[in-house]
């Protein structure tokens, strides 16, 4: 028996080869951080549990497309970003459909929903409230950097920019957050 833990990439290579049980240790390593990442993006815990589940479903569904040479962490976070983006797009479509109907009552209900959403966020602490006021791209970069421990190099790869550009973006986001956080 060996004490060295198996790497993410080795585990995922086994999952790719249909040894699905090897996804369990990967779930243990990643479901917390992924849930954290998605919750800070969506500000909705129930939804984030669903989205986290979707990420693992996609890992299984598309396991054969995993290239063993690519870092698992980057792959899984890219997938989580896409899952979040898909959810966002679906929401946008729903909103557009609602406006097309021009149903006054429904619009009222939507606004009511938005306000109750605000009340939920008010019950969170100030920091989370301030974070939620940032635009999603800025929030995301801070979450990756500060809560997920991503270096600028990794963030750059994930967002498709250079490490230096990621650093500049992160610093801008931090300044934006500072202005909101200390506004009063």
């Amino acid at each position: 028996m060996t004490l060295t833990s198996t790497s993410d990439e080795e585990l995922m290579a086994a999952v790719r080869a249909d040894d699905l049980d090897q996804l369990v240790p990967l779930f243990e390593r990643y479901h917390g951080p992924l849930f954290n990442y998605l919750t800070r993006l969506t500000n909705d815990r129930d939804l984030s549990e669903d989205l986290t589940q979707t990420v693992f479903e996609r890992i299984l569904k598309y396991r054969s497309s995993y290239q063993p040479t690519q870092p698992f962490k980057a792959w899984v976070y890219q997938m989580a970003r896409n899952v979040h983006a898909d959810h966002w797009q679906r929401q946008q479509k729903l909103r557009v459909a609602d406006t097309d109907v021009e149903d006054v009552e429904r619009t009222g209900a939507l606004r009511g929903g938005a306000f109750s959403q605000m009340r939920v966020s008010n019950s969170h602490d100030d920091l989370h409230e301030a974070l939620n006021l940032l635009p999603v791209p800025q929030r995301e970069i801070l979450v990756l950097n500060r809560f997920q421990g991503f270096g600028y190099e990794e963030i750059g790869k994930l967002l498709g920019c250079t490490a230096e550009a990621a650093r500049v973006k992160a610093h801008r986001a931090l300044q934006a957050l500072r202005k909101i956080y200390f506004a009063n």
Partner: protein
Amino acid sequence: MKTPELSACHELEALLPAYVEHSLPAAEAARVAAHLPNCPSCQLQVTQLRALTNDLDAALPEVPRTVLRANFMAMLEEQKQLLKPDAAVAKPVAAPAQPEAKVVSMWPTAGLNTWMRVAASIVLIATGVLLGRNLHWGPQGSTEVATAASDSNQQTHTQLARALTPANGQVVSASDRIQLVNNSTKETEPGDATVQVLLNTLNFDPNPNVRLATCEALYRLRADPRVREGLVHALSVQTDPNVQITLIDMVVSMQVRRAVPQLEKLSKRPDALPVVRAQAEAGIGKLI
């Protein structure tokens, strides 16, 4: 009018986060340190950034409910059950070892540098020029091609459509069709009807080389939303491996995420070459 202090503050503001996290180069850190004692506003910013960083570091992680683990385990069990009969069927008919094949992408993939894009365009242009020269040698083709080239500025999509489809009884040779397709995108803008003509060519032209040239022409018009739709559709109908691989490269390079279901089907199509199926799988990996 800005005072020198204010513009210095404005300039230093961008450096303050890096100063707080001690990642500024020594020279710039010294500049900030020299400025701070005389500037209460920047001092306040530094204090706030330090407090914010501490609060961010102290924030407790969000922890999911245990139901997430239970749901995951249920989903995993389901998938394992699905796999069992498949495995029993798959084992006796072990697939013959497939030779390793390497596919070189014609299109720059997402992370590639600009110089790769430039290099790729040079190759494309060079191919176009070579092709053009070859075409001038043909006695019949030369006049048509010369006309096509000289008229390319005024060329309308209807003329192009007529030339590309053999409806008028006069069949234009495949190499001439390639030339027409290559010329078609020189003076067109997104939204142009040329896109529709090219999509028709991609779907219906019998010659795979013409279809390949059409792919390249469509890639140049990729700003048009119809191109993305058309490529996704083409993935499901094209059977030539070169065209299939080209299409996969294009949808990956253009980040057409809604192509994933088609790629998935392609990766499982028994009539597709192993190299195409592998390329489709790799494409899914980059898009999901």
